[in-house]
């Protein structure tokens, strides 16, 4: 059964376009999606997934299971950076360990979306509140990452960092919270979620009019974006020489390990098959959008090519290609149908 799931995933349009992008870089094609077109698709996907999630949240309501699931997701985004940090400190300095840990505590919206469209093809249901979980897992991981970086900084340096240009630690906290909660992609996702909720609750006539944009177009736009993600991920592969075996190992082992923890939590929460897969994917995926942008500003001492190439060059392709069907096979094994 598992092998058929892998095939079904590998032969789906989004994953094939992802491969097309990777292959293009490997064989030396000059195919590129020039900036800012990828940003267009990235903004669109966030807006659409947020809107649809909010819409479904309005239908399902905020019952206890919803709140418990979201709470568990937030908890995971606090715990994963801590354990990852402890492990990464075996070999890396505090700054880099903290930045990478934050990345793995946070999530990758594109991986989540790919998992959703995989569930759609399998005709397995899932709930809109999982998007809320997605949206709320970005910020805590960033805050934990910054705190870890600060704690592991040599005392004097921490001082200077805080004072350098703005004369006080308080101001820097404002910046950190801003990066964590008002980062463009976090803000758009949460904002669209709220709008989807409000529109569904108060002016449902608008839902049908949004449908061609947020729903119908979605699958094709995802294919287009994954084509670009394939190109970008493959370009990152070059950086891996610099990365070293330790980090390569981490970026391929962390996803299944975190997914297993996610599976355990899902079983405890009594989630459905679809929601379990999504929960596992949230735990297993690593951020290469919100977190790197925030770390660049708040932990400039860390090397961006380390946290980006692991999250984007290895963990992301691993999850999209192998992880999702693997987690689905586990889900089917451990979670009873509907």
């Amino acid at each position, binding site marked *: 059964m598992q092998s058929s799931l892998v095939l079904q995933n590998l032969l789906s349009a989004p994953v094939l376009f992802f491969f097309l992008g990777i292959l293009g870089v490997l064989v030396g094609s000059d195919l590129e999606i*020039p*900036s*800012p077109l*990828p*940003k267009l*698709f*990235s903004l669109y996907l966030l807006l659409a997934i947020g809107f649809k999630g909010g819409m479904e949240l309005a239908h399902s309501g905020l019952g206890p299971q919803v709140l418990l699931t979201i709470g568990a997701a937030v908890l995971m985004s606090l715990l994963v950076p801590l354990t990852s940090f402890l492990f990464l400190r075996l070999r890396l300095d505090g700054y880099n360990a903290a930045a990478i840990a934050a990345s793995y505590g946070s999530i990758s919206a594109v991986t989540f979306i790919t998992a959703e469209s995989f569930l759609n093809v399998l005709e397995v249901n899932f709930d809109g509140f999982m998007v809320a979980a997605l949206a709320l897992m970005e910020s805590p991981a960033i805050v934990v990452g910054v705190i870890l970086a600060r704690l592991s900084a040599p005392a004097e340096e921490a001082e200077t960092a805080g004072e*350098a*240009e703005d004369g006080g630690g308080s101001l820097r906290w404002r910046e950190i919270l801003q990066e964590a909660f008002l*980062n*463009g*992609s976090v803000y758009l996702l949460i904002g669209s979620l709220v709008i989807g909720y409000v529109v569904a609750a108060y002016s449902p006539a608008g839902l049908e009019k949004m449908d061609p944009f947020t729903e119908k177009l979605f699958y094709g736009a995802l294919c287009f974006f994954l084509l*670009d993600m394939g*190109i*970008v991920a493959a*370009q*990152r592969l070059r950086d891996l020489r610099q990365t070293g075996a330790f980090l390569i190992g981490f970026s391929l082992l962390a996803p299944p390990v975190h997914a297993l923890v996610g599976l355990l939590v899902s079983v405890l929460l009594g989630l459905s098959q679809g929601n379990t897969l999504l929960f596992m994917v949230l735990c297993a995926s690593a951020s*290469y*959008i*919100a977190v*790197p*942008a925030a770390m*660049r*500003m708040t932990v*400039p001492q860390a*090397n*961006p*090519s380390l946290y*980006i190439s692991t999250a984007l060059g290895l963990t992301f392709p691993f999850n999209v290609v192998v992880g999702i069907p693997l987690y689905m096979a586990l889900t089917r094994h451990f979670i009873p149908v509907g």
Partner: protein
Amino acid sequence: MKRIDLFLSERELNRVCKAITAAGAKGYSVMRHVTGMGPSGEISEGMDFSGLGANAHVIVFVEDALLVAMGKALRPLLKRYGGVGFVSSAEPL
């Protein structure tokens, strides 16, 4: 007059522009989406979608007298976040 050319990550652009104005410059120009290579590696447009951005190129023309203040304001930022700065001579057209 002096011409100052700065190359730095787009993420720090706001901060640098504020420092330039605070140091007393009357104007500056910014080009974004700049790629390149420097001491801390290669910067491509590939990550532009992620909000991490590419580099920015900032050009500031200032009176000679202002150069010292500009250097004082900008060098710590370049040191902290990465980026390079160069100075040359120029005249108004």
